[in-house]
């Protein structure tokens, strides 16, 4: 049985600075961290800022660091946390703080714009549609499960510690690129951009992103490594390089 009250240390503040503040609330069975935040907001401090939408793990709005681990607050049950000591709630540390638990994630949206969009190959059927087998869409479908919570970006040391926001697009956007590259109807070539503009080389496969993904996408193994392999084939394999130079293959 879980205890009837719990204590939370929640980061309160803005870009200028802040501090943890302690809240104690009554809890009930099945509550998730986001419920606790809402209860504090409704009963103790109406100004406590939190971003959320669906409260069902489908929209990826309520990403934060719970006891130091990047999580979705709506999918983290209090019963799974140690409640004999305070639960700490902090905003994602990789992004600029707006207020309390809310960060400015707009960099992700701006950076996505720099990735070449889908460019379709000619249709397969006279009615303008394509034929794709399920086995050919299984892999990109895995990537399209992404809910853009940006927890993978938050935990990636290239962004979090080295702050290479202008040189590296991060795991989320590599997954996005992989999904486009593996879409059976796509005809664009993003490999040069990946190498020169989007900094795929900065990923040194520590797999932290995969660990925190709430959709359990195998980010490193299934998206980033295959992209790296394609890139090696395209730019470092002598025959492919020649073919590429002659414009024979994209």
């Amino acid at each position, binding site marked *: 049985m879980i205890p009837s009250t719990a204590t939370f240390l929640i980061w309160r503040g803005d870009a200028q600075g802040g501090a943890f503040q302690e809240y104690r609330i009554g809890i009930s069975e*099945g509550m998730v961290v986001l419920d606790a935040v809402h209860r504090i907001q409704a009963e103790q401090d*109406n*100004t*406590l800022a939190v971003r959320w*939408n669906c409260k069902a793990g489908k*929209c990826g709005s309520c990403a934060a660091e719970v006891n130091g681990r990047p999580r979705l607050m709506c999918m983290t049950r209090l019963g799974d946390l140690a409640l004999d000591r305070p639960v700490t709630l902090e905003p994602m540390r990789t992004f600029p703080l707006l207020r309390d638990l809310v960060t400015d994630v707009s960099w992700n949206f701006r950076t996505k714009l720099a990735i070449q969009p*889908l460019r379709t190959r000619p249709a397969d059927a006279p009615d303008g549609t394509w034929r794709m087998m399920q086995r050919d*869409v299984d892999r990109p479908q895995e990537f*399209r499960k992404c809910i853009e919570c940006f927890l993978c970006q938050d935990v990636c040391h290239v962004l979090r510690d080295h702050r290479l926001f202008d040189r590296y697009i991060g795991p989320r956007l590599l997954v996005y690129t992989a999904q486009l590259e593996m879409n059976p109807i796509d005809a664009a070539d993003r490999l040069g951009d990946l190498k020169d503009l989007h900094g795929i080389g900065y990923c040194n496969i520590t797999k932290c992103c995969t660990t925190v993904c709430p959709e359990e996408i195998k980010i490193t193994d299934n998206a980033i490594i295959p992209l790296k392999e394609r890139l090696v084939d395209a730019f470092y394999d002598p025959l492919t390089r020649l073919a590429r130079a002659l414009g024979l293959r994209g």
Partner: protein
Amino acid sequence: MLAYEAIRHDVLVIGAGGAGLRAAIEASAEGASVGVVCKSLLGKAHTVMAEGGIAAAMANVDERDNWRVHFSDTMRGGQYVNNWRMAELHAKEAPERIRELEAWGALFDRTGDGRILQRHFGGHRYARLVHVGDRTGLEMIRTLQDHGIHRGIEFYMEFTVCALLTEGNRVVGAVAYSREKGTFFVFQAKAVVLATGGIGRSYRITSNSWECTGDGLALAYRAGAELADMEFVQFHPTGMVWPPSVAGLLVTESVRGEGGVLRNNQGRRFMFDDIPEAYRAQTADNEEEGWRYTQGDRNARRPPELVTRDHVARCIVREIKEGRGSPHGGVFLDIAWIREKIPNSAEHIKRKLPSMYDQFLKLAGIDITKVPMEVGPTTHYMMGGIRVDGDSQVSSVEGLFAAGECAAGLHGANRLGGNSLSDLLVFGRRAGLYAAQFARQAQWVEADQNQVHAVIAHAVEPFERAAAHPADSPYRILEELRELMQNLVGIVRTGEEMTQALDGLAKFKERALRVGVVGNRFYNPGWHTSLDLDNQLIVSEAVCRAALTRSESRGAHYRLDYPNKDVRWGHINLVVRRADDGMAVVERPLPEMPQELKAIIEEMK
């Protein structure tokens, strides 16, 4: 007077779910300068939660399907008070909207020969729902988002619109504020498209996200537009009932589509006990036939679990009320039982219903491949909304368009599963198209500065009240409002209870005038809630007044004091609009259906 930033767009779209994004893409393709204002970050709108699929008569799985069958299914589901023109356009245009999504990058589940797969759903005669597992809404919104961002559309994320600006009966723009910074913006626009979604947050038990506060309906109403069909609120039969913190969370109809069955605490499949007349010929009379239907046997009829949502919800309520419910006040929804039929059923369930498997395992500690779920009805969808022209989606205010859940008409008295996502695509596109065309020929009309000032002054009032005297909490009023709507204007309604609800709403309105908030305007949820509350009060009153007026039971609107359908009401839509002395409800006869459409309905009966 607080400062504001002035912005100009030919077409302003309010809302960035499926309908708003599709409208923006179309308006932009027409050459209009387009701005999209949305309350959340891009790609987070409530559309993301849609699970089951998009209804479109593509006939990929069953060649007997075509627009005429889809049209008649939609009308039957809506109990014939739908806007028939919308039902016709929707059925005809949905397949093209799907093909377009695929060309924009959507990857739907496939048939054996590499085309788009379709699945069965309640009320649809043939396998019709285009889907991706049980995360179709995410696929749709991400596709529209990733396509839309390259179309030169300006997005204003985490903005809330306080009011529309009007000049006579013409909309000329909107006043909004940035939720992040608390600063104000005045959008001047030749045309405005409302795509703000539903109203579910005015009920305690709901599947809806926080955004669904009926903003578009309230904005349109205050601008003088007509609302219609407000009495028709859909209660989805299967929401989670336990644990309490997730009560209302949707359990997709695909669970039943994949063979899941409803049972009471005596193990009885109670849906066999009460099959509505209109569906009797299409419904299986034994369990074996129902199972074969879910597995694609084209000669089998649907199991009774897959009749329309209004009916299933009421049957569940009956079981619970009569003491045959599950331990936490629901009934059992069992998909685990298919282990008797399918080898490796656990893997099968995880592949077909991945989100459901996850949701129950993570939030309730229940493995749905092994044990039944507990489910009960949850407020899910608003059939009613802004009254629009079926072709152009224009409202009764010039230049003001509406599409998707915030518009009324397509679904009549009850929506079929899957018809919502297709609604967003078909009518989002039409709203964007006609808004851009309107903008092309319209002159700019400058916003009235007095209106602008009044809107901004009103929006910041809650801060002044908090300083002036002891104020009421917006959260407290909201909680009471949701409780009241749940208890008095819910699935089973009576005139007496709804009269009581109107009294309660009047008191909330008075209290809302005394709501105070502390802090500043920088990302202040207390303030946001106090402004949402105004909208929720208008919408709740409209639901209540319309429901009180319709003295019959039809579709999702069920009156204990008028339990039967009434032929006279079958020819009437109720329209709600602002009048000098408050809110007026007027009867509007349905327009005569063309002979050709009548013949289709007759033929498909």
